[in-house]
């Protein structure tokens, strides 16, 4: 014997409230807001110029003047970290935005277009996602040469196949739905069906997937910059700060210790927020803390 327990999807106000009631989601939200503010307000809140050299003051441990200390060129680490947030979030949001748009278009084409085109696109998506991410990224960097633009292209290339696959699956599922068939029977054109019916229904899951991808992208940017294959110095990427700190590990361990903190907190924040959002938005998963 089974009893259907009533399930309700929380409304827009309910999402916020449910998220605030969940300690992990709340912690994630706070961290994400802090990093967003750091990114937006960097020019005003950073105490120093992030690339101004002051070689006399190099390798200073944290102090009242330099809360996070200074690096091998005497640059203020706190300022570099704050500007680093702007760089990390800027690159992450730009690249997943572009990847999302490409994934959306190709996914709709694969899902709604002719069968042969679908097969070709799926083979391409599968091939691209069957490459271990890092090797694919490194191959692209070799060809294009390291730099911020390359980094964005790399992130777009490694992320869009997953988005396209998701959109394709959703589109295929929806295309068979009664209301779409009814529209078709009434003679609606492909354009009308795609823009009025498919698009609004497939965007939601895509946005959730993209949000959950942001920490991965931040990690990839920092990692490649750490290998000196991403953002070029002297730009204050968190990866660059880490790499410079690593080189001075024994002289001034505070640099590398401090540089790891924003990276850990940012990835934690975005992941916690993503988990919290998913729990709230997916009522079947609700209550199963980490199902």
């Amino acid at each position, binding site marked *: 014997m089974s009893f259907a327990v009533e399930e309700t999807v929380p409304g827009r106000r309910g999402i916020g409230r449910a998220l605030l009631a969940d300690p992990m989601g709340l912690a994630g939200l706070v961290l994400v807001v802090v990093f967003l503010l750091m990114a937006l307000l960097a020019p005003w809140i950073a105490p120093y110029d992030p690339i101004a050299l002051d070689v006399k003051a190099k390798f200073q441990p944290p102090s009242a003047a330099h809360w996070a200390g200074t690096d091998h060129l005497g640059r203020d680490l706190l300022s570099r970290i704050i500007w680093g947030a702007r760089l990390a979030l800027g690159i992450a949001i730009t690249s997943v935005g572009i990847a999302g748009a490409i994934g959306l278009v190709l996914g709709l084409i694969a899902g709604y277009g002719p069968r042969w085109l679908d097969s070709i696109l799926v*083979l391409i998506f599968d091939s691209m996602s069957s490459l271990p*991410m890092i090797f694919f990224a*490194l*191959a692209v960097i*070799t060809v294009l040469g390291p730099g911020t633009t390359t980094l964005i292209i790399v992130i777009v290339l490694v992320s869009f196949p997953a988005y396209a696959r998701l959109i394709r699956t959703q589109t295929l599922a929806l295309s068979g739905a009664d209301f779409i068939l009814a529209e078709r029977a009434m003679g609606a054109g492909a354009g009308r069906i795609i823009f009025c019916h498919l698009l609004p229904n497939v965007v939601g899951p895509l946005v959730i997937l993209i949000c959950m991808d942001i920490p991965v992208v931040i990690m990839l940017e920092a990692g490649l910059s750490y290998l000196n294959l991403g953002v070029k110095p002297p730009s204050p990427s968190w990866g660059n700060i880490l790499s410079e700190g690593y080189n001075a590990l024994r002289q001034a361990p505070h640099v590398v210790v401090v540089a790891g903190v924003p990276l850990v907190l940012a990835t*934690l924040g975005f*992941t916690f927020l993503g988990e919290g959002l998913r729990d709230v938005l997916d009522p079947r998963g609700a209550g*199963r803390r*980490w199902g």
Partner: protein
Amino acid sequence: MLAYAIRRMGLSLLILIVVMVAMYGMVFLVPGDPASLALGPRATPELKEALRERMGLDQPILTQIAYFFGNVLRGDLGVDVWSKRPVLEQILEVFPNTLILGVVALGWALVMGIVLGCAAVVWRDTWADRLLGVLSVSVISVPSFVVAIYALIVFAVWLNWLPAIGAGEAGDFWSQVRALILPAFAVGIGWVGYLARLIRASMLEVMEAPHIRTARAFGMRERDIVFRHALRVAIVPTISILAVGFGSILSSAVFVESVFSRPGIGTLITGAVEKRNYPVVMGTVLFMTGFYLLVVTAADLLIARLDPRVRDVLRG
């Protein structure tokens, strides 16, 4: 079963060919001459020409591709532009290091992940379960190279318990083991969380199944039900994710090898990317893609062996 294996391998081969064409095509899609890019702006025209010839760039593109495929089939991945050593030789020299790192990392992550995932199921909905949940999400999201750097500072620099760099002395087993501990910890830690989570979710689903109720109705101990009956069912979907995840283990290994200056595929390819050493980069990417596809295919075949239902569907 055999037909399935052949079909599955055929698909992998097709993907590998697409990847090869894409890799090779990419070089020509980009504006600019790979030879001059590799040598930098100050290279003389003679030097560039010599390099172009060495890379085979003076041939028509179709000839190059045909040549490339032919060579790959013969196991020749090209020759290093700088050291003139065969690429395959360099890869095979360092690959065991990376493989050991990946396998050991995945191994300890799997053991810990299963234990913690099952523990969370046994203690479900208690504070211990919730704590394990938060810890899992946390270790999943922290980048492995940051873990590597912190581990290096604490255990190699401050405490001086373990070596900071290298892969240990050749022939000295214990020094190799000691050099492996920190990298394997850094690469595997995220997977402990991921697997614990995966096993827990998979187990909870299995624990709802009627056959678990049967086991309970016969008075089996909850511990025996979890480890002897539910785990066998829950592990099957985990294997395919594990195989796909081996790709991300390799990605972590690239960064972590760099942190510990550990000779391996990661240090080989990052060095080559910096010098724009095309043959080494392309060869390594191709090799690792092939290896990865092999692992994924093998996992699919293993699942077919472990789950008698799948096995029979394939046989029938």
